[in-house]
């Protein structure tokens, strides 16, 4: 269908809450600066933006985003919101940490928030996730369900954040299947599906049947490789990341996903601003807070495996198991 330009950057006539409904009017303005991924990255930028749109529908707050074309854009983009009198400005992704820190110092009276990184400033809310814990759980699924005793991990850029996914996943696999082998492949990029595809092909070729990816858009290539193999009769799976990726890539290849509730976090903090209860500081969302974990429905995972997952989940929450993070 052909376009309605207003969907891209939400509405600018703040009063009219999109989506109709009996939303309360609010004159709060919330801005969001994406990293280079943009709001259609099928990953955290998208989750965050969808959350903000939901906030708009529910509260009538005006929301808007600016996509960064490069690292240099973070500063002016944040400033566009700050100087425009926005009540809260989100920086989505750890890449924005330094820009948020700089902006926070220069504008002590503005509220800022960041996902996936900790910025130490009195006017910044930092939201991070215990990705290692969630990844542990999908590792349990993989360890239980692999038929070849070999599973794979495809990472984007090799960074401490992505390492948390890898390490947690490997720990989960080993916990339930000590004999299973985990092969790891970093593609070096979050936006190169072709590299993801080649990495997946190599891993599947080496005998693995399940791949967990934490590679953003690069993961699209992983799904595509799996799909083409499934079509030609091979039984392989992909474990998605950030969102329930079965919704996008279908149930024939998506085993489950390591969901990171960026949307919940964004919603929660944004609403705090609308309600006037915003408190700066660091918040780490873990299994306990339902900040990470499996999606609600998992068609492809048998109940007994889900039960094991639940078992481990409780152990982690109780602190009986500490999931490594690096």
């Amino acid at each position, binding site marked *: *269908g*052909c*376009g*309605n*330009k*207003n*969907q*891209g*950057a939400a509405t600018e006539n703040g009063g009219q809450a999109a989506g109709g409904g009996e939303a309360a009017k609010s004159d709060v303005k919330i801005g969001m600066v994406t990293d280079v991924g*943009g*709001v*259609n990255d*099928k990953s955290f930028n998208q989750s965050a933006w969808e959350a903000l749109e939901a906030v708009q529908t529910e509260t009538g707050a005006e929301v808007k985003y600016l*996509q960064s074309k490069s690292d240099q854009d973070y500063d002016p983009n944040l400033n566009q919101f700050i100087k425009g009198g926005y009540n809260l400005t989100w920086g989505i992704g750890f890449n924005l940490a330094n820009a948020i820190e700089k902006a926070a110092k220069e504008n002590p009276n503005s509220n800022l928030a960041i996902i996936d990184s900790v910025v130490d400033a009195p006017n910044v809310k930092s939201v991070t996730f215990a990705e290692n814990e969630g990844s542990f759980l999908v590792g349990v699924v993989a360890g239980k369900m692999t038929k070849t005793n070999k599973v794979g991990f495809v990472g984007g850029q*090799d960074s401490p954040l992505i390492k948390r996914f890898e390490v947690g996943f490997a720990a989960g696999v080993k916990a339930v299947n000590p004999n299973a082998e985990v*092969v*790891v*492949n*970093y593609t*070096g990029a979050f*936006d*190169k*599906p*072709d*590299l993801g*595809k*080649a*990495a997946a*092909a*190599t*891993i599947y*070729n*080496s005998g693995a049947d399940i791949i967990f990816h934490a590679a953003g*858009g690069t993961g*699209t*290539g992983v*799904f*595509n490789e799996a*799909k*083409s*193999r499934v*079509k*030609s009769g091979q039984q392989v799976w992909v474990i998605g990341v950030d969102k329930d990726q079965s919704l*996008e*890539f279908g149930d024939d290849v998506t085993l489950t996903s390591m969901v990171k509730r960026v949307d919940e976090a964004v919603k929660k903090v944004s609403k705090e601003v609308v309600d006037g209860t915003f408190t700066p500081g660091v918040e780490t969302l873990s299994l306990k807070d339902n900040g990470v974990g499996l999606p609600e429905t998992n068609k492809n995972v048998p109940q007994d495996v889900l039960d094991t997952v639940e078992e481990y989940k409780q152990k982690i929450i109780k602190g009986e198991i500490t999931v490594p993070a690096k």
Partner: protein
Amino acid sequence: MDLITLGQIINTTLVFATALIFASLGGIFSERSGVTNLGIEGLMIFGAFAAAIGGYYAEDAGMGGTAAAWVGVLAAIVFGVIVSLIHAVASITFKADQVISGIVINFLAAGSTLYLVKLLFNGSGESELIQGFNKLNIPGLTDIPFIGSVFFNAYPTTYLAIILVIAGWYVLYKTPFGLRLRAVGEHPSAADTVGVKVNRLRYIGVMISGALAGLGGATITLTTTGTFSHNTISGQGYIAIAAMIFGKWNPIGAFGAAVFFGFSQAIRNYVQLFAWSQSIPQEIIFMLPYLLTIIVLVGAVGRSSAPAALGQPYDPGKR
């Protein structure tokens, strides 16, 4: 490295190389006619875009996955040809600097495809996922040990690419059209004085390059990403140009070079399967394909032989 792994690497290689094969073959047709084409990247972007859109609307209209993918291929070819005409008009008719007008294509591609995607998909910077192609087994052939799994379990585009390389070589070197095209790229006024229409052939060369580069872009959408976004094509066009030069403007050579690039990419992934690779910095492994290329180039003897009139607009009156 055992035989099976080698076979698998070759298989992966071919998947990787397919788009490069198309695009570098396209480059050859343009440059053999004497028109530099740095717009390959942009033409690939347009092709990838058209394939995503074409495939999407075909699926929307109820076509099955593969049929819709072929619609995407067709759309990419048509789009590639249309866009290549911008380059042709500027550089052939208006005698603009060919390098510049190629780069213009890249700029227009980067801007307008994303702009259109946003218009068509409600502001989203990425098109909707489509089915694309699946790997094809050729009954009988696929069962041949080793060879079968290496060469006869591939995407239709890969088969098409190999066919086109052979066809391209045949056309260039065995047909009157090829002779004329190459003559126009080497010595346009010689061609002109024997009644060969220089500019018309150059138009054809550029349009073929548009079609093939578009096809290369479509390959990536239809076999790798399933969608189009700003980074669906990111540098493959330039690699294809490198492959063309590396292959000395010859279809077979460019095919070899494209496969080489694909191979070094495959190696880069393959290496990571081994535990010892953990002790090598990742970045070194990432560099591998590019380093290998330079090393091979330096080792390769002989200067590369570009068409003699490459880059020069044809002006019959010039002394």
